[in-house]
């Protein structure tokens, strides 16, 4: 499994730094405080770029023009825009090293489906970092649930759900008593694992979540499935089907609180099917990887319905 390392001496992965204008890189060097690392870099057509460091947004003076944005898009697509049209329609690109780039611009829509994006207006580049081992608490909670019921981790964007989920997958797939872990990596972000030949991991890269969960259950005989950002009703139905196959799911979802989470479409279906034994609210102090967990078990969550 490929290691995504942003070296402590470099602010950006080398392959990404090679694509960006020199003036932007130089400004990043001057702007990012010593010892800290950018979590996200935003480039905007005709507007200031910005970088998020330690939870704070820092404005950069660099402004990229239209041609630079279009050229950068083609470079991010490794010279083959058509090969990424599916993910571009969903608003993102997955680069070969697991870096995810959000893309927006003018959408061409046919029959309600986005068929292409032109006049790119911004890129949002999420930068994974090598972190200390995380997720031990979630693994312990999973143990308490006797490995039969899943866990849903929720938090607003940017808290570190994906980083935590990676740690959980690695924790469960490694160690003295490893489990067969299937990772449904729809957006290619979970794949930024440390290289571990000993990990019992099966990664379904780019699979739609519902389909990936079904395949992991039916054909990979996974003991646990890990999946990021579950959300809609169609996924909920596939997840329920997987759960009746006896495979617990550890997943994440966007939500600021338990009420907001349980009010989402599909959550009632998942809750009534007892897919998740616990709902874990996540928070984190800026710039650190120390998570705070707010655990709501199934019985307590039932009171919200």
């Amino acid at each position, binding site marked *: 499994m490929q290691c995504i390392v942003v070296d402590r001496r470099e602010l950006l992965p080398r392959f990404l730094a090679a694509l960006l204008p020199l003036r932007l890189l130089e400004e990043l060097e001057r702007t990012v405080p010593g010892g800290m690392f950018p979590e996200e870099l935003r480039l905007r057509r005709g507007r200031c770029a910005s970088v998020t460091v330690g939870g704070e947004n820092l404005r950069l003076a660099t402004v990229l023009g239209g041609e630079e944005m279009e050229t950068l898009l083609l470079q991010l697509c490794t010279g083959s825009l*058509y090969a990424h*049209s599916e993910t571009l329609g969903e608003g993102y690109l997955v680069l070969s090293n697991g870096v995810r780039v959000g893309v927006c611009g003018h959408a061409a829509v046919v029959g309600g489906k986005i068929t292409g994006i032109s006049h790119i207006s911004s890129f949002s580049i999420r930068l994974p970092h090598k972190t200390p081992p995380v997720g031990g608490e979630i693994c312990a909670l999973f143990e308490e649930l006797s490995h039969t019921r899943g866990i849903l981790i929720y938090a607003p964007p940017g808290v570190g759900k994906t980083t935590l989920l990676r740690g959980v997958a690695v924790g469960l797939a490694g160690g003295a008593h490893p489990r067969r872990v299937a990772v449904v990596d729809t957006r290619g972000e979970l794949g930024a694992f440390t290289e571990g030949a000993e990990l019992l991991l099966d990664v379904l890269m780019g699979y739609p979540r519902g389909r990936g969960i079904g395949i992991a259950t039916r054909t990979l005989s996974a003991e646990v499935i890990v999946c990021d950002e579950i959300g809609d009703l169609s996924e909920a139905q596939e997840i329920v089907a997987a759960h009746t196959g006896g495979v617990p799911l550890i997943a994440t979802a966007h939500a600021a609180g338990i009420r907001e989470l349980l009010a989402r479409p599909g959550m009632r279906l998942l809750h009534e099917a007892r897919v998740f034994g616990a709902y874990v609210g996540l928070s984190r102090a800026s710039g650190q990887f120390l998570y705070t967990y707010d655990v709501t078990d199934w019985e307590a969550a039932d009171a919200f319905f």
Partner: protein
Amino acid sequence: MHFFKWLGIGLILLCGIFAGVCFAAFERRRVAQAEGFLALLRLIRLQIDCFSMPVGHILAACDKEVLSACGATAVPADLGTMLATTRLYLSEDICRLLREFASRLGGSYREEELRCCDYYLARLAPYCDVLRADLARRERMALLLPPALSVAVILLLL
């Protein structure tokens, strides 16, 4: 004296024959390269149509014989690089066409890419057909003309 005269005649004749063989090989090479590029463009179109495969992957997975027919000595990173580093035996128009195609390849979505491939295939295929049909005649010309010129030179000198 006679010896050197005959040696000279022999050398001039040999040069003519050698030039003829080279020109004939050039003609064959030109046809092979044109057909190689035609096969490559068809492959690119097919891979985009069926798999939306990135250009780099298409070239990396391409049959070595096709690349070799195009004149590439190594697997290129992209088509533009391949055209820049390969000796092209084709006409100036076709070379320009291929460079145009290389610059446009990969810059649009699937449907547009397929239309682009079709456009350039439609312009390359007739050129290949003409070259192929004309090859026998051009080979004969190439093999006969230089030796004939050598004989003419010999006769002029004698």
